[in-house]
C-alpha cells in the first residue's frame, strides 16, 4: 500500500470516529468503546475492500457486512453516511423515536445495513446463511462478519463457525474484534476466551491475527481473503476498546458511556487535529 492510500484510509477511520461521536453526542451516551475499536476496520472495508453501491444499497451482487456486535451501530451509520448511503445530518437522529438509525443494526430501517443484529450471536448464523445463499445463487460477492470478543461467549457463534467450516464457505470472512473487554470488565475476568487464533483454526478457518488499529495490516489480511477457496476466513483483530480517543481507552468501564458537550468538543478537537495532520 502506498503512503497516500494509507493516509486516506487513516483519515477515513478518523472521520468515522468523529461522525460516530457526533451521533452519540446528539443523544447523550452510547457504546463508545466498541464503536471506536472497529473504526479502522470499517474504514478499510468500505474504503478499499467492499464492492457496494450507495445509490443502490440492495444491489444483489454487493459485498455484505454483518456487524453481529450490533451495538456498534453508530460506527456502521457513520461509515454509511460518509459513503453517501444517507444524509450525514441524519446521524443526529440516532436512537430518537422514528429514526432509521436505532442503537442496534436493523436491515429493515437503514439503507446499507444488510442484516439485523443486536441479540449477540445471531448475526453469525445469518452471515453464514447469507454466504451460503449467495454461493447457491452463483454470486461472486463476499460476506464480512464482525464479531465482538465478548459476543463470542454466546454458543451460537460457535455453532455458526462449525457450520461455515462444514459448508466450506470460502466467501465468508469473520473479523473478531479482540478488544479484550466486555460490558462487565475484561474478558479474562468475566469469561476468558483463550486463544482466538487457535480456536478459529481448530474450527477450520484460515486464520490470521493482525493489529486492528493498523489499516495497512487490516488491508493486507483482507486482501488475501479474495482468493476464496474451501475454507472460511478469520481475522483476529488485536484492538483496544475505545481506540483513537486516549481518555476512552483509559476508562475502565467504557462499553457504554456518556458523551456530554465538554467531552464531545475536547475529543472532536483531538480527532480533528489528527485529521488535519493526515490531510495537511
Amino acid at each position, binding site marked *: 500500500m502506498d503512503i497516500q492510500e494509507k493516509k486516506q484510509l487513516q483519515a477515513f477511520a478518523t472521520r468515522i470516529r468523529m461522525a460516530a461521536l457526533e451521533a452519540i453526542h446528539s443523544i447523550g451516551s452510547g457504546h463508545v468503546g466498541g464503536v471506536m475499536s472497529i473504526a479502522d476496520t470499517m474504514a478499510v472495508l468500505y474504503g478499499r475492500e467492499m464492492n457496494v453501491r450507495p445509490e443502490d444499497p440492495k444491489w444483489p451482487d454487493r459485498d455484505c457486512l454483518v456487524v453481529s456486535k450490533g451495538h456498534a451501530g453508530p460506527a456502521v451509520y457513520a461509515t454509511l453516511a460518509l459513503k453517501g448511503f444517507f444524509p450525514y445530518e441524519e446521524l443526529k437522529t440516532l436512537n430518537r423515536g422514528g429514526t432509521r438509525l436505532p442503537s442496534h443494526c436493523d436491515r429493515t430501517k437503514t439503507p446499507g445495513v444488510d442484516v439485523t443484529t443486536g*441479540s449477540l450471536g445471531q448475526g453469525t*448464523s445469518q452471515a453464514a446463511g447469507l454466504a*451460503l445463499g449467495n454461493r447457491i445463487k452463483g454470486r461472486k460477492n463476499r460476506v464480512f462478519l464482525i464479531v465482538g470478543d465478548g459476543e463470542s461467549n454466546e454458543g*451460537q457463534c460457535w455453532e455458526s463457525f462449525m457450520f461455515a467450516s462444514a*459448508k466450506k464457505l470460502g466467501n465468508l470472512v469473520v473479523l473478531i474484534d479482540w478488544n479484550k473487554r466486555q460490558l462487565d470488565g475484561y474478558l479474562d475476568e468475566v469469561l476468558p476466551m483463550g486463544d482466538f487464533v487457535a480456536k478459529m483454526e481448530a474450527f477450520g478457518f484460515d486464520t490470521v491475527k493482525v493489529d486492528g488499529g493498523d489499516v495497512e495490516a487490516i488491508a493486507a489480511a483482507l486482501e488475501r481473503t479474495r482468493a476464496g477457496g474451501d475454507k472460511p476466513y478469520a481475522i483476529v483483530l488485536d484492538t483496544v476498546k475505545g481506540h483513537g480517543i486516549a481518555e476512552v481507552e483509559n476508562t475502565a468501564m467504557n462499553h457504554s458511556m456518556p458523551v456530554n458537550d465538554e467531552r464531545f468538543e475536547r475529543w472532536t478537537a483531538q480527532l480533528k487535529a489528527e485529521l488535519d495532520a493526515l490531510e495537511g
Partner: protein
Amino acid sequence: MLNIVYNGELDPRLCKDVIGATVADIVDHDPNAIFLDADLMSCSGTLKWAKANPERAIDCGIAESNMAGVAAGLAVAGFKPIIHSFGTFASRRCYDQVFLSGGYAKNDMTVIGTDPGVTATMNGGTHMPFEDVALYNALPGATVIDASDPACLASVLRQCQNRPGVKYIRVGRKQLARVYADGSELPIGKAITLRDGSDVVIFAAGLMLHEAMKAAASLEAQGISAAVVDCFTIKPIDADAVEAFAKKCGAVVVAENANRHGGLYNNILEVLAERCPVPAACVAVEDEFGEVGTQSYLMERFGLTAAHIEQQAKAVLKRK
C-alpha cells in the same frame, strides 16, 4: 376444491411422508425454496430426497438456533426457507432466533415442528411441546397452524411459501384421521365446518378433530346437537366463524393438544369476550409438563379424549 371425506378412518399415510413429498415438490419447483433440518431428516421424511439434492436440502446438524439463523441469512439472500425439527426444538430451542433473525428482521420462513403435544409419545416429556403454540402465538405477525390431516398439511405447506412472516406448522409424524380429500385447498385463516349443530360448538384442531367428531356423534345420540369446526389456523383465528357459531349455538368447547394457556382456547376466548360472550370450556392440557407413554395413555392422562369433550360440552350447556 375443498372436499370433506371424514368417516372416522385413519389416512393410510404417515404425515412425515407427506412432509417429505410436499417439501421435495416445493423445492424442486421453486428455485428460491430451500429446506433445512437439524439432524432429523429421517424424521421429516426428507432424507432420501435430501441426499440427492444436497444444495437445497441442508442438514445443519444438531444446532437448531444456528439453523434458524442460517435460514434468516438465506432469506436475506433471496430464499424462502423451510426448517424442521421436533416441536420442542423448533419452538423453545430456537425461539429467539426465529423471533429476531426471522420475524423482527422480516426474514420470512416456515417452521415445521413435528410431534406436537402427546404425539411425542415414547420420546417423553423432554420432547413433548404443549407450549409451542403459545410461543408462536406471541410472535408478532406469525401464522400458527395445527394440521388436521395429510391433505391439510400439504395445502398449508404450499400456501406458506408465499405468505409473509413466520409460519409455524405443528403436526405429528404418524397417522391422522382422514378429513379432506387429496388436493383440497384449505385457505389459511378460514375455519372449516365439519359438522353443523345448534346446541354447542366444538372448535378443534389437529389430533383433536377426530375426538371432537366422535364426541359430536355420541352427543347426537343423546339428543344434543353439536357443531364441529376445524380451526387448523390457530392464528390468525377465523374470528367471523367463531362469532357466527358462538351466536348460533350459545355454548363453546375448544379442544386442543396443547397447554390451555396461550393457544387456540386463548384466541377463541378473545373473540368471544370482544364479540359474543357465551359460556365456554376447554379440553386441553391443564398447565402440566409432558411425560412418556403411548398416545392413548397420554390422551387419557392429559384429558384429551372424545369422552372429555363430551363431558365439557354437557358442563358448558348447563351454563347457557
